[in-house]
């Protein structure tokens, strides 16, 4: 079943745009909608990301800052780290958010904790994190290696850590399980970073505490 052909006033019988409507082979009547959408595209895909890149996070951690990582799970931050993501326990939100991880940066070092629903032992969680992280890397040199090391937080909760290497440097992947929440810990940076930052990361991991689900 065929419909009617394109109306004659759209194109000439020879399939050309009428001369009075032609600009560089295009139909002048189609320029406005095309340019409007091009404008929308440029705003959202070029301008807004450029503005985002030009802006920077100006929040820096202070002594005593405590971040909400997940319902009932908190972490005490070390001083002087830039906050790219993370809700302080002292901040109140209308949505009564109980936190959704944290991303801190200091020089070339990044430290991220990502919570997710998980029930089970910490070792299978670390294996899953290794698998997901490895698959998500575009860096083919990414390799999780080394022995799995156990650690305990200050309040005595057990977790696991494993090192990895990339083209740019090295890092640590870790796992903790609290109730029905799993925590993925990722720290990364160039191998030239001073020991002091690694020590601060270790202290932040150790400070993670759990108060249990809110009643």
């Amino acid at each position, binding site marked *: 079943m065929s419909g009617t052909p394109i109306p004659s006033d759209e194109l000439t019988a020879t399939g050309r745009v009428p001369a009075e409507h032609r600009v560089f082979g295009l139909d002048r009547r189609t320029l406005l909608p*095309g340019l409007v959408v091009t404008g929308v595209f440029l705003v959202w895909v070029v301008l807004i990301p450029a503005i985002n890149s030009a802006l920077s996070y100006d929040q820096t951690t202070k002594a005593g800052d405590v971040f909400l990582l997940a319902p009932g799970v908190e972490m005490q931050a070390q001083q002087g780290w830039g906050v790219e993501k993370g809700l302080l326990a002292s901040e109140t939100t209308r949505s*009564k958010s109980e936190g959704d991880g944290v991303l801190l940066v200091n020089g070339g070092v990044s430290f991220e904790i990502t919570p997710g*629903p998980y029930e089970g032992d910490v070792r299978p969680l670390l294996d899953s994190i290794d698998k*997901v992280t490895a698959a998500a890397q575009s860096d083919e040199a990414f390799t999780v290696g080394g022995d799995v090391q156990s650690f305990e937080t200050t309040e005595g909760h057990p977790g696991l850590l494993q090192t990895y290497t990339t083209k740019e440097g090295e890092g640590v992947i870790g796992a903790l399980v609290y109730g029905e929440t799993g925590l993925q810990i990722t720290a990364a940076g160039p191998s030239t970073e001073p020991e002091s930052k690694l020590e601060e990361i270790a202290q932040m991991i150790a400070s993670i505490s759990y108060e249990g689900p809110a009643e």
Partner: protein
Amino acid sequence: MTTTPQSAPRPDALDRRRRVLELSGWGQEFRLWQPHNLCFWVYAAVMAIGIVNLINYVNDRATVVGGAFAAGLAATIVYGLLFVAFLRFSEHYERQPRKLVLTAFLWGGVAATFGMAIVANSAMLEIYPKLFGQAFGTDWGAALTAPFTEETTKAAGFILLLGLAPRVVRTPYDGIFLGAFIGLGFQLFEDVTYSVATATAAFGVDESHIALQTFALRAVTGVFSHTLFTALFCCGLIFVIGTPAQPRRLGVGIGLIALSMLTHGVWDGSAAIGDGGATALLAGLVLGLIALAALFVALRRTAPKEREFLRGVMQPEVENGTITAAELDALCSPGRRRRKFARHSGTGHRAHCAEKHVLRASLDLAHELAESGGRDTAGVEHERAEIARLRGGIAAA
């Protein structure tokens, strides 16, 4: 029931049919390939970017949470087919050309989602905490992002369709249905990405189960989602822009667009609006119902124009004896009156059913006449013969 004796339709009735078909754009063919049209190149370029981003998205996740991806995709396809069937069934007067519907759907699913919104959303969601702090970003980031980024990127596709098919896309009805298909494409592709994202956030453990849980939640709330928002937005755009078939009505148009964006924003920000309590869902639900009601009002208000078009197309069929004047009146009436007409024609269930079938076949004839540009093609003659055959059923009853 008897029809009037066959005679040639009056020239003015045939002329009116021709004018109606031209004005309404009914039956006009749509083709995407229009190298002389800037809208085609913009559509193709953004679609290409969307496809590349989509492939990267799938590649990055298929190896990690392949089960979640497959489960989310399968469930979404079934859900999507139901939605498509509902939307196509709802197009009573004239169905949009299939190619146009597919073009709209793919814009929503690929170009708007992966070509623009995914980039814009990521940037906007970082800008708010940078400017106003993490707490503000947590509360209002999504509500102040999606209504702007997503509604405008979806509407951009509708503007391209206006430029690609100016003789097909003309009435608020076209805006509602094409907008709904753009929104449906966006909604379905987003459903899959949400299923995959939640499975990834759960470290890939029990991935299929988590993906299906996410899908189920989004399916339930899917009524108040992109299909509704975009139908309202694009209906409003027709009023704002104005077409040969719909004079510009800025107030109505801006009102519909604002309602669409407001509903989207309230839905995304319901947790903060409701102060984290039970009123959160209620706020979104109430505004969603208002938006749904506005859509039905818009449909009811714009339907008379479609019925007027239908009458213009079918009037000559009364004069040539294919249908009766009463059948034409019923055909050009709201659904309730059509059903009442069928119930009161003849006696017995068989007669009622036969009359209902005659009305349905009359609509098929209208579609065929629209596609033939009002000419008596083999298809048109076939539909007339069908009506005569079904009318035999009424006589027998």
